[in-house]
């Protein structure tokens, strides 16, 4: 089977400068890339003129609720949402029920993605500790064998530093990196929003930003001591950014991600008491938001991940303190990040790097358009103006604070292994 993507602006920062060109895909593999138009007899042609053609995006931090809470999201709907968001690969976090601390769960997830999914690649992240309890190590070697690409207790930190040290060492034995949800639970306990003038004004129990940075510092010190890599999930504070920058300068192998909502909203938004603004870590202050924007540019933050956390409306339509944390993110990430390009914070090349850095961090093939490599491609219309409508989501959940936002830039087509898994007409 042949497909020809014609006359798109190919933005492929790991390979060089962007240019208008065409890409020939045969049997799921890129076989030819050339400037300008191309002729290919018998190929299905996709007109990409006016579109940016970029390496398929990866979201290295999503929560699909399968197994356990399929009414919020299952693997099939999650992969549909990923495709609609321009993602050709996702890494699923282990806090399912049962959790991903056993090969049965991993095998179930991989099989369901393979047999019932739309083709978007799913890479499970396994639990670091048994039952995500932070007490004893999960069978990390076996989980890796079953297909896990990293380990994490996401949703929770490993509070016990002695266990953290051993988990990082043991995971390294099998070439896996620990992904840290950095939160000091004693500081965050009972908190509902970032501690700031706005928590004072809204009268909601506060979470101090130091609850994040104190654990980020510990993880960096641990990585430095062990000479091992560590990855910090969903960085939300200036203090965490400064800490990561400090340790990167020292040569510590720390990588970091942040999520679009931390770049778009601040804790002021919680004043609506809309439980869709409740997320963990919480929306932070304007100073934090600015520091994150600068960190995208200077490389302190390596990746964008959505922390896609679907919750059913009935779970969210409760008193603020009782609502679960999290918001869906897959289908709004690209336009929200394009806003940072439009506002001049980052270049479009950097945008592509941020959305494909996960491949390198986790050692997954992808992130570059090259002859002989997988044809995972995302086609983006950078100037297309539209309004986010949660009712159009392919995700099973609608918990977004971005409903009704006017945005510029949309995913036009998502291609995995040469096969179109999502397309939008306009």
């Amino acid at each position, binding site marked *: 089977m042949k497909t020809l993507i014609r006359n798109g602006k190919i933005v492929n920062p790991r390979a060089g400068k962007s240019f208008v060109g065409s890409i020939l895909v045969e049997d799921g593999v890129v076989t030819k890339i050339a400037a300008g138009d191309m002729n290919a007899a018998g190929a299905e042609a996709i007109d990409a003129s006016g579109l940016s053609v970029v390496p398929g995006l990866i979201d290295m931090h999503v929560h699909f609720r399968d197994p356990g809470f399929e009414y919020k999201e299952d693997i099939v709907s999650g992969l549909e949402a990923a495709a609609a968001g321009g993602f050709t690969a996702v890494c699923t976090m282990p806090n399912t029920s049962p959790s991903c601390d056993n090969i049965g769960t991993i095998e179930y997830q991989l099989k369901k993605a393979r047999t019932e999914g739309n083709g978007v690649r799913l890479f499970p992240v396994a639990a670091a500790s048994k039952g995500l309890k932070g007490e004893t190590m999960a069978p990390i070697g076996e989980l890796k064998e079953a297909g896990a690409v990293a380990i994490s207790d996401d949703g929770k930190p490993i509070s016990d530093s002695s266990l953290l040290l051993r988990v990082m060492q043991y995971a390294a034995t099998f070439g896996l990196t620990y992904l840290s949800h950095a939160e000091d639970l004693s500081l965050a306990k009972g908190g509902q929003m970032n501690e700031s003038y706005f928590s004072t004004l809204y009268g*909601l129990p506060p979470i101090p930003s130091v609850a994040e940075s104190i654990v980020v510092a510990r993880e960096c010190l641990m990585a430095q001591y062990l000479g091992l890599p560590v990855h910090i999930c969903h960085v939300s504070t200036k203090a965490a950014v400064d800490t990561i920058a400090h340790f990167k300068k020292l040569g510590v192998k720390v990588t970091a991600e942040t999520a679009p909502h931390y770049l778009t909203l601040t804790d002021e938004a919680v004043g609506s008491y809309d439980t869709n603004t409740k997320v963990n870590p919480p929306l932070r202050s304007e100073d934090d938001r600015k520091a994150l924007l600068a960190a995208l540019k200077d490389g302190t933050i390596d990746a964008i991940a959505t922390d896609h956390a679907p919750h059913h409306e009935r779970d969210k339509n409760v008193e603020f303190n009782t609502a679960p944390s999290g918001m869906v993110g897959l289908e709004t990430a690209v336009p929200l990040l394009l806003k940072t390009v439009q506002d001049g914070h980052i270049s479009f090349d950097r945008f592509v790097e941020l959305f494909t850095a996960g491949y390198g961090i986790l050692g997954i093939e992808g992130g570059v358009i090259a002859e002989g490599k997988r044809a995972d491609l995302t086609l983006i219309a950078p100037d297309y103006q539209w309004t986010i409508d949660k009712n159009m989501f392919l995700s099973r959940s609608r918990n977004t604070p971005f409903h009704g936002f006017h945005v510029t830039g949309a995913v036009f087509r998502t291609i995995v292994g040469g096969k179109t898994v999502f397309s939008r007409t306009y």
Partner: protein
Amino acid sequence: MKHLLGIENLNRDQILHILETAVSFEEINQRQIKKVPTLKGISVINFFAEPSTRTRMSFEVAEKRLSADTYNIAVSGSAITKGETLADTALNLQAMSPDCLVIRHAVSGTPHMLAQIMDCSVVNAGDGFHEHPTQALLDAYTIQKKKKRLDGLKIALLGDISHSRVARSNIHLLTKTGSQVVLAGPATMMPRDVEKLGVTVTNDPKEAVKDADVVMMLRIQEERESGLMYPDRREYAKFFCLDDKLLAHARPDAIVMHPGPANRGVEIEDHIMDGDRSVILEQVANGVAVRMAVLYLLLGGSNS
């Protein structure tokens, strides 16, 4: 005005209008027959999802004196304990077409949530640490009665500001009317960046009370994080209790207030609470008139 959710979104004129309206209701409360037909046929649901004696009684008295039909729901008698969500309870209440819901809830923002779900007026009778607007209005009413004004006063607010909805509503109200509010208490009880609300903060109660026209004490909430906010009641009393020595720094004509219920001997000495500078029981009496005014303005304004 359809709802009373907080003082934050009221302007000075709206506040003063409520207080003026309360004057005529105070007069009714002094009559032998304390009942007027103003809200006849209007139904008001009092939904107190947190223990309350004073505020719940005060609302009920206010409603009955206005001849409204009142219905009380306590959490123990509601479907909430059977696992129904609050949103579903609200929809069911809505189906019975009430005119007003008076809601007390431990979670900040819950009255706002109900105001979006229901068609009726919603009165916030205290939500979490957020607001308690009728308490601030009755406090202001009491201050105005005693001091003949609400501007240019120095008001000391002492104690646990972090966990106090009374403090937040009073800060909004008194700064809007042009008085100076000074907060004092241990730093553990001061919420972050509270100065941005237009108040002055000090750790020294003497400094706050110095030349104050009004000394307002807040309840120490023992049930919250005890041992983390302050060591114990004994030490708290030693440094922060309102006693004669502390009160001597205030103006000679200063009044002493407390929203109740008070911890005698912890945040306020008995003889000050019961003394002639205390207006604590007048606050309670004025509460009925102020709540009558609020209900009248929300529910009966067009009939008269």
